[in-house]
């Protein structure tokens, strides 16, 4: 039961955190140029966004759930199940971030999800 709860925290925490950070990065605006200084300035501004501070605790929670799960179970058990986060992430992108997840992208996401599960289980 504790394993199921930790898997739920792992999947929803990482996806929720990434969606919040994606929103924070978008509202900050992309770096002017692809140079280390510009990227560092961008990261500094993105870190000041409220979205970032919503995403970090969710990802930290997910990270600790991953550490505990890895100490209890083999990677070949944890990663195939956590691959569901690709599907949950695509749903988050569509409904929370307003992205256009078309048929090709859905097909790609589902293939990646199945592929990650097979690689980790193999």
């Amino acid at each position, binding site marked *: 039961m504790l394993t199921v709860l930790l898997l739920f925290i792992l999947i929803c925490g990482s996806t929720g955190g990434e969606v919040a950070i994606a929103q924070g990065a978008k*509202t900050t605006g992309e770096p002017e140029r692809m140079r280390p200084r510009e990227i560092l300035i961008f990261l500094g501004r*993105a870190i000041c966004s409220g979205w970032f501070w919503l995403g970090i605790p969710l990802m930290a929670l997910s990270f600790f759930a991953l550490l505990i799960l890895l*100490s209890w179970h083999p990677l070949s058990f944890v990663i195939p199940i956590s691959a569901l986060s690709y599907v949950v992430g695509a749903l988050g992108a569509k409904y929370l971030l307003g992205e256009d997840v078309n048929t090709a*992208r859905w097909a790609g996401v589902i293939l*990646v999800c199945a*592929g990650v599960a097979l690689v980790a289980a*193999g």
Partner: protein
Amino acid sequence: MATESRLRIKTLIMVLAMVVCAVAGDLMLKRGMTDAGAVHFTTHGLLHFLASISTNATIWIGILFLLGFMASQMTVMSWADYSYVMPAGAFGYALQTFLAVVVLHETVSAKRWIGVLLICVGVILVGQTKPRTTECAVPEKAAAC
């Protein structure tokens, strides 16, 4: 057209940085956690777990790589869709398998090769779509979007 091609190239560069950092970080963490031993869900067990991970150099190096992953992921998501970047990052699993065969001379099961094939086809499918499908979130930077 030139803007679209520039967008794809810089997205590819940042996704590659993400993949390399994620693969290195995961390997270090797994190694560090194996050294630290199983976590026991008691107050003493959790305190012991926190103490052992805070002094484990392998885990700290893994965390540094994961910070690199996060920095590159945040940067790429400032211009590209999350639903485009996230599956593309899964190419790391395929990379791990290739490295296991080429560098470590490991034998890889048929199931794992099928998984790698599915990931590659999935990443190619996602790669065919537009990296950005949303409007520029920052009006002042709309011209650059």
